[in-house]
């Protein structure tokens, strides 16, 4: 092969390798996107489109007061609400120390066939500083925002490294 051809082959093979790897990357990327929902957003989304079972998602809201139920051997079930809709959640394992009825909660879990969620990880957060901004926004929007911590001056917000 002449050097010119050689270079052409090199460039073409390089480009095709890149195209293949970018495609693979995007497929993996799409499979691993985890959407955040509030209960009403999730219900709405389920009406619009069909969700495959076992889809992993994040759900944020308040633990509905009075909904916490204990199942044997050591699982629990509760409702997550944003004031407009509720979603059933079941969970087994250690709970975060601030998990209470009426508290804000963010969980990672799988969507089951019966439209309930089996949580694999639960985060309970008690004020804006320690709550993902999207949950705070969702709670504020639904009028369920409670402040029980100190209010910081609006000009200065403590950051984190």
């Amino acid at each position, binding site marked *: 092969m002449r050097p010119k051809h050689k270079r052409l082959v090199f460039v073409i093979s390089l480009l095709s390798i890149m195209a293949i790897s970018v495609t693979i990357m995007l497929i993996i*990327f799409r499979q691993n996107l985890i959407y*955040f929902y509030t209960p009403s957003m999730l219900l709405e989304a389920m009406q619009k489109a069909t969700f495959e079972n076992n889809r992993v998602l994040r759900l944020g809201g308040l633990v509905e007061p009075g909904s916490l139920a204990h199942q044997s051997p050591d699982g629990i079930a509760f409702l997550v609400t944003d004031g407009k809709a509720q979603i059933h959640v079941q969970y087994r394992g250690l709970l975060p*120390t601030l998990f209470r009825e009426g508290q804000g909660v963010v969980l990672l879990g799988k969507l089951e066939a019966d439209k309930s969620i089996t949580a694999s990880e639960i985060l309970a957060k*008690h*004020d804006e500083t320690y709550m993902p901004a999207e949950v705070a926004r969702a709670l504020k929007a639904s009028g369920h925002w409670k402040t029980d911590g100190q209010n910081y001056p609006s000009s200065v*917000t403590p950051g984190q490294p």
Partner: protein
Amino acid sequence: MIVEFGHGALILALMVALFSALLPLWKSISHVKRLFRLSFPLALLQTILITTAFAALIYAHATSDFTVVNVVLNSHTDKPLLYKISGTWGNHEGSMMLWIFILSLYGLFVSLTRPLDQDLSERALIVLSAVSAGFIAFILFTSNPFTRVYPPAQNGEDLNPLLQDIGLSIHPPMLYMGYVGFGIVFAFAVAALWRGDLTPQWARIVQPWILLAWSTLTLGIGLGSWWAYRELGWGGWWFWDPVENVSLLPWLTATALLHANLALEKRGLFSRWVLLLAILTFTMSLMGTFIVRSGLITSVHAFASDQTRGLFILGYVGAVIGISLLLYARKYNNFCSMPYRISSKEGAILINNIVLVSFAFTVLIAILYPVFLSLIGAPSISVGAAYFNTIFVPFAMILSVTAGISPLLPWHRIPLAMLQRSIAPLLATALITIAIVLLLDRHALLFTCVALALSAWMLAGTVMHAIRRFRAIPSTSSDSYVKKLRRFPIAAMGTLFAHLGVAVLFSAITISSAYKQRFEAPITQGKAIVFNDYTLSVTHAEKLHRYNYDVRTATFLITHSGEKIAELSPEMRYYPIRQMQTSEVAIDSNLWRDVYLVLGEATPTDESAPATHIGIRLYVTPGMFFLWLGFGLIALGGGISFIHRMAKAGKDKP
């Protein structure tokens, strides 16, 4: 009074930085030569002023001066002194001060080293002053740590308890030494663009700074992981969280830069690429500094932050990147690239660069895509850890292959016989490793076998490199091994340690993730908890008060196959000032495994006592010691090279 003094010093520092940056505009370039001589005294003056300001802030924190807003929001009288001081940079404003303090020290350092190229160094110092001026302006106008509050507060609101940890006291300074260090590299790159030439000498001048920044960044990332491991209580050390990813980006591009710059130094290759990488790396460092705080990204570390600073940050980063890239585009044709063969050391370095930068790119997409979606009002998403794990594996594997073989390869071109001679022992080691892994664990996953084999390949390559270097030491037959070893070239040691570190780190990551065991159970009065060969029994439980928090703790006696191995006392801490509960992990480490115990609230099984029920989570993870060792070795390698090169540069005649 001292606070006002610090505030004044910071304002003066801004003046000095602006003056230094605008110096070349003052008179025509030919006259600037004389003005250039001012660069050292100006750098010194700036350092003194910024140090004064930073010291004043530390003083305010250490003495709990509650007339200062920053202290009120982040400190408390009951807090231990160490955390009062480290609390200075445990918040946004203070950490910006730390950034600028480190930048000024670097500037002084640059002006102190006897430059090989006076003109280049002075141009770089001017660029650095411009970067510095923008940053000080950012602090003064949007994040002033010296703001007073009247009337003074009774007491402070305390530092986020998660940050009250020794790991996070030293993590920010290390991380910022890395980030800011790439600012120096960036300044030299812009200086080269400004002058319009790039020589192998440039590479020699810049390499020590790359090495220093890269080593400290490695340490910074390692310390951050160590903190996450001990403090977050999830048994893991890396969560692919945006804050972590953002610190990984400059590390990846810097690792690429480190190697490409070697090719520039030795062979005069990749000049355009090196300049672009230098700009990219500093861009990533700025992103790392800012992205978390601008409120663009939510993560477990960042919680909620301020949106108002966003515009200033965007403008600043935009200016830094925009101007440098514009300059790059205009001067692009000044820099030529020379032909080279792909089958050579430079070819291996090229592959390593492509892999590192592609990996950085895939991580960057995952960071920015959710931000982009939220900007156009789409539902908020996050990218699952599975994405990063899947992407990381092939990249790490290719890197292991090139990193193992490339130190053995010569520049220019590789004779085929030599390639065969180099590959054979590495391949043999890799295959033997697979056999050993399967012998020890018949059910080992394919992934585990391959990943460990590749780590072994890399280890073998490093060892072979060491042996070859050792054999090449000129010696008489009477010389003993020890005598010969003393003359081992220090220049080669940096590469050896760093590559050894990466091999150790990769194998530790593989082993710890493949063989981690996790177990959760509620504690029941008077009953031992049994998990595989481990038995845990509570010997003692108490409640007490310490410094600024209340503690609930239990002591567990842990036995393994009937043999006592440790007594661990994990804690649940309640910080009344912040109304926050944290979990303090207890870990028993030895060379081979960590036993990691966390207290938590168990899922209540009984309706009557839902709130006070306590459970444990136990992790048994092998290889953690080697993981931290890997981080240490990588940083050590960089450090050795840095010191060696600095010493050599000191001896060179300018």
